[in-house]
Each structure stands twice: as C-alpha cells, then as structure tokens.
C-alpha cells in the first residue's frame, strides 16, 4: 500500500499541475440550461446562442489574452437540479461567472448560491422580478414581468377587448408574476377579468379549466404559460369551441409550440424579445451566422443567450480581471450594449430596460405585429 502511494503521489501531483496549468490559459464560464425535459426547447435555443457567442469571442482572440471555456450542464427541466449544478460549477470547475437560466424558477434556485459565493450570474431570459432581487451579483439582460404583463394588458385594451379571462400556471413564478401584472394594469384601465383559472406544469388535460372559462364568455384569454402546455391549451380550446384569441408572453417561444398546436393558435398574440424578421443589420447578421452554424432560425432564447455571453465577455474586458467583485462592478456598468435584442443598459436593480416585440401566429409561423417601448 505504501509502495503504491509513493508511486502514485508524484503522478497525481503531475496530473494536478498539468490541469491547473491548462486551466490558467482559459477562463471558465458555467452555463446551466434545460437541455432536456419539459423546457428543452428553451434550453437548447439559449445554449446554441450562448455557444455561438463564445465561439465568436474566441475566434476574435478571446478576452484578456485567454480563451473562454463554456462548461454546460443540463438541469433536465427539473427543480432541484440548478442548485446542484451551480454548486459544482463554483466548487469544482471554479468558474468566474454563471450564465442561465431561461425559466425564472430555475434561476431563483441558482441565484442565492452565486450571490453567497460572490460569483456573478447573468440570466438571459428569466423575467420574474424576484430573480435579480436575490442580490447584487445577479443580473438579467431581458425585460421583467411587470413590463411584459403590462404590455399585453395595454395591447388587449387597444384591441378593444374589455372582458378577458386568465389561465395561470401555478407552478411557475414566471406565469404567476405575468398574470398579476396583467390583471393589475388591465383592471386599473377599465378592463374586466371575467374568470381566473389555474393549471400546473405537466398537465395534459385542460378541458375542465377551459370549460369553466368558456362559461364566462371572454373576449380573449391571457395564458402566460410555457409552450408545452400552451400548445395543448390552444388545441383543446378550439375543440371546445372557444374561438377567442389567446394572449401570452415570451414563454410561448419554442419550436414545439406550433408542432403540437397545429393551426389552433392562429390569431393569437404574445410578447417576446426579438423577431428574426427584424430588418436591422445586427439582427440579420446574427440570424445568418446562426443559420450557418445550426441550420435553423434563431428564436428569442437564442438571441438572449448570445447577448448574455457577449455582455459577460465585454465586462471581463472592461474589468481587466475575472475576480468576482470587479467583474460584478463591470457587468453592473453595462451601458448601451448593442445587443441582438436591442440596446441593453442595466439599471440599478440589475435589470435591462428594452422594448418588447409583439408577435402574432399566422399560417403556421410567428409574424411581427408591433414593437412596444418601455
């Protein structure tokens, strides 16, 4: 045994030295995403966008003379996983910053751990206000639920819809938040909420809820859920003879939305961050690069994933170091970053103020409807 140890220990030391030497010429960034499971569409998209950004940064010479190394872990869309993954990022991989997640409830799990360890975390697309309230190391580069809920309430009123029903996913902080702010603005400006109903992530049968909503005869139904359930809700609503438009938020964005829903969501509207139809050169350049790399059209989550990595890289450059406190200050100082999803300036609450895009669903695709400024 002693012999074994004496032989092994020099080997181990050499291995340890080699890995730490290799680690020094790379800056490690942790990314957690729902690559599989119910929110896989989000995770796959944001991951592809993030990866594209990291590749672009490294191709342009990296930051501080080093390449960025993206370490990606799949949280399988399961509660409990983000905490474990982020612990691992910080304790084992020694990442300098964390990118993730799309779903607010996942980001809320990871945020306290990053905050405690003074590792900056940038969420690409979690819109629930609570996410950045966790602490001063937590950032996001998207707008927040109050804005998104308000935008859709304004939109509904502008369309002349006075009686709206609300169908909320009670298991998602995101959905509950959006519904709250929608209802607040809508009722304060002359609208009436004729019925509220709820469901839980993973439900497949929504006919009981939809039957009860139908009885209230709404002009439109606000469904601020995620695409997996919204697709089935759309389909079952049409079967039950509910023909009013459905309204939603950026949780609708996912390529499986229309695959499952078919044409049953035609005439519905939702708010989001980005439209690939946007003619601005920055967007078109990004869309072309993304198509060349992945042979598909990027959606919101891809654009936000890309922006999140770019903002991090830019902050590392400005900070001149990857040390937690200085990096945090640099990210907080982000101003007028020309992102794919609009000009990004982080405010004192570490949220981004940017315009929202409203898309409509027509002929089996998302079509640009209008842009709403904050």
């Amino acid at each position, binding site marked *: 045994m002693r012999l074994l140890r004496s032989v092994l220990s020099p080997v181990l030391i050499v291995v340890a030295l080699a890995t730490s030497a290799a680690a020094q010429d790379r800056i490690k960034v942790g990314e957690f995403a729902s690559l*599989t*499971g*119910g929110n*896989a*569409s989000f995770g796959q998209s944001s991951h592809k966008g993030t990866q594209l950004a990291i590749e672009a940064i490294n191709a342009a010479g990296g930051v501080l003379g080093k390449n960025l190394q993206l370490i990606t872990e799949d949280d*399988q*869309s399961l509660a409990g996983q983000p905490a474990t993954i982020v612990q691992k990022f910080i304790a084992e991989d020694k990442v300098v910053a964390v990118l993730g997640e799309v779903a607010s409830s996942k980001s809320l799990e990871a945020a306290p751990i990053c905050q405690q360890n003074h590792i900056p975390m940038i969420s690409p697309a979690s819109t629930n206000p609570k996410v950045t309230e966790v602490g001063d190391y937590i950032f996001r580069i998207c707008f927040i639920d109050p804005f998104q809920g308000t935008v859709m309430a304004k939109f509904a009123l502008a369309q002349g819809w006075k009686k709206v029903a609300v169908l909320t996913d*009670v298991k998602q902080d995101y959905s509950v938040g959006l519904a709250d702010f929608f209802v607040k603005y809508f009722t304060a400006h002359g609208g009436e909420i004729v019925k509220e*109903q*709820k*469901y*839980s992530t*993973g*439900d*497949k*049968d929504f*006919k*009981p*809820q939809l*039957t*009860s909503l*139908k*009885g209230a005869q709404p002009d439109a139904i606000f469904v601020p859920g995620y695409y*997996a359930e919204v*697709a*089935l809700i759309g*389909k*079952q609503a049409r*079967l*039950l*003879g509910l023909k009013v438009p459905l309204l939603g938020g950026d949780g609708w964005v996912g390529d*499986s939305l229309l*695959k*499952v829903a078919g044409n049953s969501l035609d005439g519905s509207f939702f708010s989001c961050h980005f439209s690939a139809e946007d003619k601005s050169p920055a967007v078109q350049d990004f869309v072309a690069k993304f198509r060349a790399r992945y042979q598909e059209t990027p959606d919101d989550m891809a654009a936000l994933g890309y922006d999140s990595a770019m903002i991090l890289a830019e902050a590392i450059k400005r900070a001149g170091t990857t040390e937690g406190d200085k990096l945090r200050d640099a990210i907080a100082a982000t101003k007028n970053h020309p992102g794919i999803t609009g000009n990004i300036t982080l405010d004192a609450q570490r949220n981004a103020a940017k315009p929202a895009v409203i898309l409509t669903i027509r002929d089996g695709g998302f079509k640009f409807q209008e842009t709403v400024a904050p």
Partner: protein
Amino acid sequence: MTEFLQQLVNGLAQGGIYALIALGYTMIYGVLRFINFAHGDIFMLGAFAGFYLAPATLKLFGAGPSYAGAALVLLGAMALCALIGIVIERLCYRPLRDRPRITALITAIGVSLLLENGGQLLFGADPKSFPDLIVDRALDLPAGWGPLSALTITLSQVLVLGVTLLLLVALRHVVNRTRTGLAMRALSLNPTAAQLAGVNLDQVIMFTFGLGSALAGAAGVLISIQQPSIDPLMGISAGLKAFIAAVLGGIGNLPGAVLGGVLIGLLEALVVGYLSPTYRDPIVFAVLILILIFRPAGLLGTVQKEKV
C-alpha cells in the same frame, strides 16, 4: 347546467383512460397478489409505440389520418405492450415468485424506474408531438336536447369512450366465457387449489400480464389522440391515479376498476372546474387514504378473511 354537464363529459373521457390502466393493476393483483408499479410505464410505452408506428401505418391507408390506420396503430401498440409486459414478467417477476411479496414489489419499482429513465435515454426527455391519427373535431349535437345541445363533445372523446367500452366487453368475455379466463378466476380465488386442478400457473400469469399490458398500451394511444403531447414520464401520474382507481373500486375486482377509474376522472374534472387545480391531486390522494381507512376492500370488493 351546461357547464356542469360539460365537466362530466370531460371527466368521463379522462376516467375511461384511468379505467383501462386500472384494469391491468387489478388483473395482475388478482392472480399474483402484488401491485405492478411498472404498469403506468407500460401505458407510456403504449403511447410511444403509437408514436413510432403511426407514420408508417397511416401511409398504408393514404396520406392523412384515417380510422383504419388509427385502429391498426392501436392494435400494434397493444401487441407491442403485451409483448413487453410478458417479457418483464418472465425476466423480472417470475424468478422472484416464491420470494416474499415485498421483493416483487420493490422489483416492480425498479422496473418502473428503468422504463422511465431508459425511456428518457431512448426517446429523449423532451415532450413529443403525437401524430394525428384521426381528424379531431367537436360533434354537432341536435338542437332539441335542452342543455345537452350546448355541450361540446369531441370525436376523440367519443372514440376513447367507445373503444374503452369495446375493450371492456371483450375483456369481460375473455374472463367469464373462456377457459383461460376460468383459469384466471380460479387462480385468483385459490392458487394452490387451482394448480391442483390442473391450471398451468406460468401460462395464466403470462396471459394476464399480456392482457393487462395490452389494455395499458391501448390507453396510451387513446390518451395521445386527445392530448397529443407525450413524454417518457407521462406514466407516473396516470399510473398513480389508475392505481388509486383500482383501490377505490376494490383491488382485484374488474368492474370495480372501471367504476373507480370513472369516479376518479369525474372527481378530478369537478375539482378542477369548481375548486382549483391545485386541490386536484391532494383530493384524489385523500380519497386513497380515506378508502384505505374506512373501506379497505374498496367500493365493490369483498373483505377476504385471513385464514390462520
């Protein structure tokens, strides 16, 4: 009034699915006295069998959805599930048949986890869109039926209930009118006596697993027609609900399983429609606890005296 009736229709359609799965639980319990916790995952495999069979099968009957194609997909999925059920019994449960019952129970949980996680590995964990087997639409009801005329009954709901009823009648025939059915009943009444009378234990148990799994497979395809989004973990919740249905009706009792399934379906629809979906699962599981406390043999079950 219409809304209430509509909720009953919704609940009945969901209850029919639970009934089909519950039958498998109850049949296997009847002959083996153990709960096959992997049964809900056979239901999931049925949905995936349909998912992979559908494109090629539908092509046989023209391009789009067709009844003949749907029927063939249903039968194909049932056959595959029967085969899987038989293989599971042969590999996992038969070697343990003489061990304490708890061993088989724990094995069943292991098989269940294997199917769920193997399914995620094999099929991918993200939800898949189930292809349209039929063109689903709401049926036009005659105007003269009072509050009934305003109901929305979809083709898929009628189809699910119709096929469920058909399968129930067929099952009843098999159990009550065939020799194998007689052997099944004999085995559930008294295994030792049945064997002494010449019942081939292995064969009957194999047949029971095949039949129960085929019904679960049918339920998997039928639910996917109504709710065309399937994933490898879809069997967990449906399996648990069906298990409760089987216990509610009286485990080991075939009509009881159907009654339990329908009651659970109706209860769920009414709780969601009139209370809140957050109370749905707590209330359904509370039913399980209440039944176990106050009527452990279930609604239709008979209390069996333990012989000392």
